[in-house]
């Protein structure tokens, strides 16, 4: 019973992945709304893909998005990491003193 449920779940997730990745298989591939109004031709992603090497000078589009288009976001990520390290250090120092 559990195996059957697990198999069905895996198949469902696999089918979802396949349909999502493949743009020509409906219903998940290309949303009908995206075809209306030239959305596919004028999306933000396409604009960034075309402009990134010129506006940032970086050959890697991912790096230009991470550090130039969304620099605030990445600074926030670095802050989260800093806070995590501070929290771990603080927790283990308190535990050591108590023991």
């Amino acid at each position: 019973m559990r195996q059957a449920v697990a198999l069905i779940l895996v198949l469902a997730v696999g089918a979802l992945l396949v349909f999502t990745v493949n743009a020509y298989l409906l219903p998940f591939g290309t949303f009908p709304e995206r075809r209306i109004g030239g959305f596919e031709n004028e999306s933000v992603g396409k604009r960034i893909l075309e402009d990134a090497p010129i506006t940032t000078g970086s050959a890697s589009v991912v790096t230009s998005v991470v550090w130039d288009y969304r620099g605030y976001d990445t600074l926030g990520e670095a802050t989260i990491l800093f806070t995590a390290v501070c929290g771990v250090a603080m927790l283990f120092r308190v535990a050591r003193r108590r023991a």
Partner: protein
Amino acid sequence: MAGMTVIVRTISRLLFPFLFLFGAYIVVHGQLTPGGGFQGGVVLAAAVILLLLAYGIEGAQAKVNALQAELAESLGGLILVWMGLMGTIVGIAFFQNVLPFGSLGHVLSAGSLPVFNFGVGIKVAAGLLTIFYAILRIQGEEEK
């Protein structure tokens, strides 16, 4: 923690410079190839953690001790914020790309992005190492 057998020690000692070089390559080439500061920093931290597993905590702290790791983490954060502030000082906006772009596809290109990648690489590597040291320190206290 006493460390592992002589085979593991030898292999990890031979492997350490190559791992470190690979991590540095990922950080430095962040604006050219897939990768960047976060990923390269994790590889750099993994190189030291390999030494830690093979030689014990003393072997790893002979290379990078806990104080150095904490200082390097703060230094990485300072580089990030300082380069962000350079945008307001030299240019118009916070996090503006103010350095000259250079020619596309070379290592010295893309303005401030290599500096950001360098800072976050140091920060991630030292941060992960600091977490490891903190956890191992409390474990060593319990064994005594």
